[in-house]
């Protein structure tokens, strides 16, 4: 019962916060609501026994990405921004399509068939700790994708510099 209540709180808050994020006129407010949203998602992860994921959710998303967003938002002209409508003209179409898509996705949930259960039972992860279990897997079986991810980050770093840098001349 407590679990349901707990999930209910998180689910409700996450949805409300998501709505606030996409509807606020002022981008700074959106970012702030998003910050709160990310913390709640991290909480949900904890609830699902994924403490390492919860940790990087907070560190990377809330700590790094959102701050980056905030920086960029502050570069924009906020005064003009908040005096304008936040939605494009065709927003009802977007709403309609999204709604229908939601209905159709939800309607297939009933036909979900569970696959085979893996070896990482809650108890097994707990005994080893989540971080270690993930780390083992990451550095053995998923070593190659991991290296590629590092390369992607490198490319992103270089790309961001190249794109954001002003042209030397002109």
């Amino acid at each position, binding site marked *: 019962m407590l*679990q349901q209540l707990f*999930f209910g709180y998180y*689910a409700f808050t996450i*949805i409300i916060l*998501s*709505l606030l*994020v*996409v*509807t606020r006129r002022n981008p700074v407010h*959106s*970012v702030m609501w998003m910050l709160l949203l990310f913390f709640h*998602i991290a909480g949900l992860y904890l609830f*699902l*026994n*994924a403490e*390492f994921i919860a940790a*990087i*959710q907070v560190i*990377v*998303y809330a700590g*790094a*990405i959102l701050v*980056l*967003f905030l920086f*960029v*938002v502050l570069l*924009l002209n906020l005064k003009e*921004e908040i005096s304008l409508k*936040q939605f*494009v003209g065709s*927003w009802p179409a*977007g*709403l309609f*399509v*999204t709604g229908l*898509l*939601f209905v159709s996705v*939800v309607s297939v*949930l009933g036909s*979900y068939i569970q*696959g085979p*259960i*893996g070896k990482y039972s*809650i108890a097994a*992860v707990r005994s080893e700790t*989540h971080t270690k279990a*993930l780390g083992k*897997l990451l550095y053995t079986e*998923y070593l190659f*994708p991991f290296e590629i*991810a590092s390369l*992607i*980050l490198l490319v*992103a770093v270089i*790309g*961001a510099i*190249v*794109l*954001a840098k*002003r042209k030397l001349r002109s």
Partner: protein
Amino acid sequence: MVPLNWYLILSAAVFMIGMFGFLTRKNVIIMFMSVELMLNAVNISLVSFSHYLQDMRGHILVFFIITVAAAEAAIGLAIILALFRNKQTAHVDEMNEMKG
């Protein structure tokens, strides 16, 4: 015990809200944030799948998604900056160079 479906409905709802944001917002930064929202929705479902199937692969995938999201955010925001410098606007409805 919370059924898996509840998580999946939550995930779907967040995803759809993110999608709605992407489809309707003018400001390109908010659109970008909507994309992040959608990624998070996916993450929720992945983590919950992982939990209920007692498998680690969902977590691994989430790990990579977050990595890619970080990279994407960096590049995307850099593009927005460059765009803003050239166009003096962050509103997508004012960018229609591709109009046929």
